């Protein structure tokens, strides 16, 4: 421990002299810029510059990676992505996979976020009771959050495979085994299920903290009035929990829209396109196809960025409502 402290001090002392020098030359709060510089530099390099390059890609065509070698095509990429005879039927679109991705993502978001919110809330309410071994149960529900998406996908692949433990259970119960990941609807179901399994612990904790932040007196007062539990929940708990629910809702939404890792390893987007989501379309178009169409990938990215922008603004609004 002592060695660690000494090492920490030695390392942190290194910038002392240049920083003192900068402090001597910069008046007012301008020294602040020096402190934020590293952070801003990384942001500029790996967040803002890429957006600019994305715009360049989106407006150019061909299969070259270097922007300077790509011919300008204007809005062609966007036009081709959005070109459909009937936007509700991906098969009528020029880029049908993109639209499969959009519809699958939408369907996924509705089910995944809705169900996850429900289960997280239920779990948080149960864990908020005085229950023996509460810490243990809380830890159990949270544990999958720590697992790598690849690990999560492999665990479930092992369980869901044709001769897996789930089918064995079904056989024992006299039900015909199912090829879970081969049937489009089941594969989609398991994508939703597994992503809830892997992430709900995180949201449960946030909701649980929200529940615990409700002052005990309020509950006690209600108990005095002998309010029935359901009404108690609707009238008191739910409104007070609303800000946390909003945070969970928006965070969950943003993450669901970006879902990739688990599903990529679990189903690879199949069967067919049943679990191909929008990020996977971007990855496939830009990184895995025989001829890589970076322009299309970038255009799809920018469209996705637009949607996420709206969602993030919602979140900020929600946070403000909660803090204020």
């Amino acid at each position: 421990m002592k060695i660690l402290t000494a090492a920490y001090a030695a390392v942190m002392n290194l910038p002392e002299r240049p920083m003192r020098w900068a402090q001597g030359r910069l008046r007012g709060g301008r020294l602040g810029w020096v402190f934020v510089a590293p952070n801003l530099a990384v942001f500029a390099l790996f967040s803002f510059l890429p957006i600019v390059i994305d715009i360049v890609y989106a407006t150019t065509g061909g299969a070259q990676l270097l922007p300077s070698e790509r011919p300008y095509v204007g809005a062609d990429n966007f036009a081709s992505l959005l070109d459909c005879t009937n936007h509700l039927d991906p098969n009528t679109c020029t880029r049908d996979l993109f639209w499969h991705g959009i519809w699958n993502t939408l369907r996924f978001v509705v089910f995944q976020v809705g169900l996850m919110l429900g289960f997280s809330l239920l779990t948080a309410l149960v864990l908020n009771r005085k229950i023996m071994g509460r810490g243990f149960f809380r830890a159990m529900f949270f544990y999958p959050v720590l697992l790598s998406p690849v690990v999560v996908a492999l665990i479930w692949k092992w369980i869901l495979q044709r001769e897996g433990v789930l089918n064995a259970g079904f056989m024992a119960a006299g039900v015909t085994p199912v090829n879970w990941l081969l049937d489009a609807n089941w594969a989609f179901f398991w994508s939703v299920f597994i992503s809830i399994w892997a992430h709900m612990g995180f949201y449960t904790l946030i909701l649980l903290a929200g529940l615990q932040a409700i002052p005990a007196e309020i509950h006690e007062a209600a108990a005095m009035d002998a309010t029935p539990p359901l009404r108690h929940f609707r009238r008191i708990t739910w409104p007070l929990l609303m800000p946390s629910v909003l945070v969970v809702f928006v965070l969950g939404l943003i993450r669901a829209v970006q879902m990739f890792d688990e599903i990529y390893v679990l189903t690879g987007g199949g069967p067919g396109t049943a679990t191909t989501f929008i990020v996977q379309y971007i990855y496939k178009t830009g990184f895995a196809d025989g001829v890589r169409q970076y322009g299309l990938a970038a255009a799809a990215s920018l469209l996705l960025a637009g949607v996420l922008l709206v969602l993030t603004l919602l979140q900020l609004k929600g946070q403000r409502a909660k803090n204020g």
Partner: protein
Amino acid sequence: MSRVHLLAGLALLATASASASVANAGEIRIACYSDGNECPATMDLAKRFMAANPDVKVTIDEMPYKSILESLPVQLAAGQGPDAARVTLFGTVMQYMIDLTPYVKNPAYWEASFGAVLPWTRPPGVTTGIYGLPTQFTVTSPIVNKTLFDQAGVKLPADGASWDEWAAAVDKVAKATKTPYGMAFDRSGHRFAAAAISMGAKYFAADGTPAVIDDGFKAMASRFVKWNADNTVEKDVWASTGGGYRDAFEEFANAKIVMYHSGSWQLNRLQKQIGDAFEWQVVGNPCDKVCSGMPGGAAFVAFKGSKNPKDVARFFDFLADKPVYAEWMGMTNNIPAQAELQKGGVSYKLSPAATAALAAFGANAAKVSPTGYKLSGYAQNSAIYNPTVDRLSQVIAGQMTLDQAYARITQDVADSVAAAKK
């Protein structure tokens, strides 16, 4: 001040990274993938080469086949690629490959030895030049589990049997032996093409441009979809994993299928992993219009970004030398791409089953149709293979009709070919 700081930081980052990426003179890195033991075998030979040429350091990075397909082209495009790599789909990296003719010792020897396969590695329109060291010649072939046939009491269809006859036979065997599926195709447009060509698919129009959908293609596609639906073909392989290549070797090794449509590059794994667990046998490609498999081959190719093309050529010269090449083929149990050695001269360490298999592969190689060679040599063939797999998977998963798939494949191919031309 902030700008200065930012610039300084960037400069620091750049120098730190630059120092890491500068290759030392005489150092070459080769990206490699193994069908069986190709990378370790090449590594052994590289050690011998380095002992004789201490000024060159060869590093061989073994990576998954999928990385060669998916990551290598992006790396090369970004100027971050290796000096050389083992590749099968040359079109994906063709624009980065260099002609080694000025660097190799004896171009005439290369031309004489590998002349039959070298054209595949050349960019469209180029008729001369040494763009790679072909490491093997491959041909797709069905491999059957003879033991299962025996148990079912079904005779192997005779040479010249059609795909339908084979499908009926393996289905009968699978049902009799309670094997889950009759056969499996690797999830690859290349493997599918082999069967389609036997059905008469031509893949190209008279002017040499791709024209994938024709009666032959349709004949195979409709059968393949039907077989997937009725469990003649194992659906998991094509339907389950979405994008990308997947082979079905493990299914065959675990006797979950009766017949495996793959190719000669599997010989090593067949011998090593199956051994005498059951009797396996390579059979002739089924015949409808023709009895063709798809030819193929891997080659070590060198890239423009290499700072030491001379050393790459030296190493390739060493490997291409007839005795070393023969030893190399013996170590990896591959069919040589070298003309003289194709007539014999490689001593394999093969079991009797594998020896028979090698002969059967050889017989299949002799029957490859010109269409097969044309498709294998087409630079943008991955733009044909990928949509074939993607779209047929969608049909298999019940998400589109065959006719829709045909239209999509035509459109996808045209789109990719156009994008690649820009």
